[in-house]
């Protein structure tokens, strides 16, 4: 039986970097999943882009709980996926981002479910997001990036491919 859930690539930063990029993603899977855990060299927001597209082709809706209240919001026409809507990377405690990209090689717009799990002992939140990338191109590159500062050394991101048969 072919493997259903395969690691495609993994990166653990040996030095701080402004991005982690998965390129040359094969089109042979059905869905993709990225699991990121890490910190920032400063408290910096982390974002994602597909195929290096910096056009205003991204939008999302989110729901959030921060221990004090529940919220929901949305933004459209962004130049990136926001993985930091309420919580930047900590400089000391790793937090989690997961991205589930469905039918990434298809010819429809691309839906991604994002999960942010942040708990720094004294504060925290948990966020579920639905993102849309308005492109009919197959995804062959995914970048996790920060626009200022860097993702800290030791941070890890893994790309998994999921097959439906």
């Amino acid at each position, binding site marked *: 039986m072919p*493997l259903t859930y395969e690691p495609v690539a993994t990166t653990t930063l040996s030095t701080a970097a402004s991005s982690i990029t998965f390129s040359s993603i094969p089109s042979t899977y059905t869905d993709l999943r990225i699991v990121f855990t890490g910190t920032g060299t400063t408290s910096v927001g982390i974002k994602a882009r597909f195929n290096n597209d910096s056009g205003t082709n991204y939008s999302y809706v989110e729901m959030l709980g921060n221990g004090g209240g529940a919220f929901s919001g949305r933004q459209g026409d962004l130049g990136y996926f926001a993985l930091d809507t309420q919580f930047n990377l900590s400089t000391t405690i790793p937090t989690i981002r997961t991205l589930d990209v469905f039918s990434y090689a298809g010819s429809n717009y691309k839906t991604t479910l994002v999960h942010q799990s*942040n*708990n720094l002992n004294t504060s925290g939140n948990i966020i579920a997001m639905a993102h849309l990338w308005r492109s009919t191109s197959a995804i062959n590159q995914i970048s996790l990036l920060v626009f200022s500062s860097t993702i800290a050394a030791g941070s890890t991101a*893994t790309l998994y491919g999921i097959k439906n048969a």
Partner: protein
Amino acid sequence: MPSTYQIISSTTLTSSAATVTLSSIPSTYTDLVVRFTARTDASGTNDQIALRFNGVTTSSYAWTRFRGDGANAGSYSPNTTETSGYVAQVDAAGTASNTFANGEVYIPNYTSSTQKPSYAFSAAEDNATPAYLTLAANLGTATTAISSITFLSINSNNFVSGSSFYLYGIKNS
């Protein structure tokens, strides 16, 4: 290529138990996933379950919960460390029989020497109110590698027969 997503252990209760411990977890994976089906013998319609790593029962867990019950959504955090991490709202004796909550706990980098973030996502739906959909962000403050995970009722009730906990290891290469 070795399998990326492997079953490590499978526990299905044939009688009630106060805790379920997944032990002797090998250090050869990158992340862990626990997928569970759970119900307790609490007298009401629901109970809450928690987890501990490596049998640590001291105040070593921080958590933030986000929960919807079909009528309201709310978030809560104790804003202090607790003696267990939060997992889920589950069905109890007051709900329809044969109805169990289901969910998943994801624990990345469980062998690292850092504090241990994890998240839980669960659903307890029983064709009645209240029903629950819960997300939880957890942090285990201990920096030792995780070699065991214990699930328990926050209210000291028992898991009933049929509750199951499946532990999977995920390799990133």
